């Protein structure tokens, strides 16, 4: 391992000197080429212990990171002899069967979990043992301060607040500059409020100005009332805080976990479902800390389900409590929406209705603009004109969306008839009766 590291460090250096020297000294140049080649040749032939470890062992072991499935391997080469280790790694089951006391003891200690038999070649084994002997120096992690939520950038409202504050500060600054100037001239000074009042009075003394101001206020008030009324029951871009700052970006985005892995009932039922804690535990039995939030957020899963990340076991007799996620999307009971009808039968993508969830933290109702920018919607010529989760939203899509005709045995005869009836036309959901009140209302 040590050798290899040295090689990597040396290579660019040699190349560099090589270029420099060529002009001046041809002899040393050849020498350098020779050195260079032997080095790189060596690094090719040498099996890489780090690589072997990463590709075979990290699922069960860490070096200095605590216990996983198997023990922490830090210092194991001091604890065990090389020969013992070789036998163990090649085939722990054979070794245990051979009756070695230490092997049996550690096997019992880890509840008889069988380790894979590896049968490495001698060179690979040497490289691996070399790596275990001198594991990499603990990387000093640069604290990544980007909070999962900060990633998305500041909210626009916060930005506006800051602009307003800066402007206000400017007002007071200008006034104080003016006042100090005036003072130095021996003139009368005014505070901000005095100036504002005096100016407003002067402005309103004019009747036409009064009319304009009156009209302006009326329009603003009316617009406000109208917007509020139109906004009733519209929950666009709603994103409440959740009990765990779960990030879709990390899971569905960076690590490309499929939406259906967690929302596994979307394919087959009305609701899409929120994953229960056992689904999180498929990975988080072993991933006990995150880059952004450390152990704080993941610990909340353990608190709910009763898991001890130190010993990696479930606490017996623990009173489990549910994680109380806050429902984001919510249609009134008078409307019926079914996921499997859209995802499985209609073949739609989640993004067509939920936007780029893989770029957000917790669940959010996508805005209309966002949905119109989704490539699936663009490709299929779907453009929304009504806010998400309103009736107009459903109707917009049903008017424009084509029905998926192939691979749907259930409707074979129905689809045949429709193809005949609407020959040459685009068969939208509307033509199938998707705008009948009874399809969505009961």
């Amino acid at each position: 391992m040590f050798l290899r590291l040295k090689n990597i460090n040396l290579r660019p250096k040699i190349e560099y000197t090589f270029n420099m020297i060529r002009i001046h000294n041809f002899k040393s140049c050849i020498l350098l080429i020779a050195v260079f080649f032997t080095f790189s040749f060596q690094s090719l032939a040498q099996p890489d212990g780090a690589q072997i470890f990463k590709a075979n062992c990290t699922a069960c072991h860490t070096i200095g990171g605590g216990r996983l499935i198997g023990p922490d391997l830090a210092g194991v080469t001091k604890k065990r002899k090389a020969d013992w280790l070789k036998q163990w790694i090649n085939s722990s089951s054979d070794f245990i069967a051979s009756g070695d006391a230490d092997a049996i003891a550690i096997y019992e200690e880890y509840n008889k979990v069988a380790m894979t038999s590896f049968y490495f070649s001698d060179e690979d084994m040497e490289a691996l043992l070399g790596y275990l002997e001198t594991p990499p120096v603990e990387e000093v992690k640069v604290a990544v301060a980007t909070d999962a939520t900060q990633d998305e950038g500041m909210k626009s409202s916060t930005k506006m607040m800051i602009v307003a504050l800066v402007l206000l500060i400017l007002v007071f600054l200008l006034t104080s500059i003016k006042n100090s100037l005036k003072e130095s001239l021996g003139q009368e000074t005014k505070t901000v409020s005095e100036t504002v009042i005096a100016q407003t009075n002067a402005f309103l003394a004019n009747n036409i100005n009064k009319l304009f101001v009156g009209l302006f206020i009326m329009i603003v008030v009316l617009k406000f009332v109208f917007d509020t009324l139109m906004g009733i029951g519209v929950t666009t871009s709603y994103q409440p805080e959740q009990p765990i700052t779960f990030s879709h970006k990390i899971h569905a985005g960076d690590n490309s976990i499929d939406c259906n892995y967690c929302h596994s009932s979307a394919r087959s039922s009305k609701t899409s479902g929120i994953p229960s804690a056992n689904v999180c535990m498929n990975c988080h039995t072993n991933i006990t800390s995150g880059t952004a939030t450390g152990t704080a957020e993941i610990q909340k899963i353990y608190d709910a389900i009763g898991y001890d990340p130190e010993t990696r076991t479930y606490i017996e007799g623990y009173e489990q409590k549910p994680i109380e996620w806050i429902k984001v999307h919510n249609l009134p009971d008078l409307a019926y929406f079914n996921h499997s009808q859209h995802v499985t039968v209609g073949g739609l993508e989640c993004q067509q209705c939920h936007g780029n969830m893989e770029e957000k933290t917790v669940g959010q109702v996508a805005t209309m603009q966002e949905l119109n920018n989704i490539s699936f919607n663009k490709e299929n010529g779907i453009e929304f004109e009504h806010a998400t989760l309103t009736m107009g939203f459903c109707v917009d899509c049903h008017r424009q969306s084509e029905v998926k005709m192939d691979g749907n045995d259930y409707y074979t005869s129905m689809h045949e008839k429709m193809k005949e009836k609407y020959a040459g036309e685009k068969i939208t959901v509307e033509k199938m009766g998707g705008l009948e009140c009874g399809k969505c209302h009961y």
Partner: protein
Amino acid sequence: MNKLILKLALISLVVFFSSCGGDSDPGYEFMPNMYRSPSLETYGENTINGMNAQLPVEGTIARGHLLTFNYDGTLEGYLAAGNTTVNPIQDNKKTRTEGKALYGMFCEHCHGETGTGDGTIKHAIYSAVPHYNDEKLLRRAGVPMNELKPGHMFHAITYGLNAMGPHASQVTEEERWLIVNYVQQELQNSGK
């Protein structure tokens, strides 16, 4: 100068007010009893025993969910499953496409698209996922990955193994057999 100050003050007021209202507010609801009705909603709460999400009553079987795979999660169960079960799924183009889709949803991010263990999860723990077409390393069953039997795989999906969690709550029995069929036909001996 005074006018400028007045204008600035006005602008800052307007900006300040327009910044009100955040995304953490669902807005107003017309007839909220239609949105938050007393009827029991999926995953809601109830006053009888707390959660609506409940396990089936013990001793009952949900329609279409008769469990046919009656092996327990132990090593003995695993070995027995490998020896005795056969895959009830017929291998044809349709079942393979279905299996592939399901594999993409539930396994690909760890086992990789071609089954070589190069999934998309970046965490170190999942850099050592075994290859399906590995013919060297002996597994629990005493055979390498490319010789695992349908029962072994089904058992692994149902009960998990070490760093791979159990996936029984996410995929039904039929779907599990579809995945096993796909893995066996397309991935286990790929590259040969």
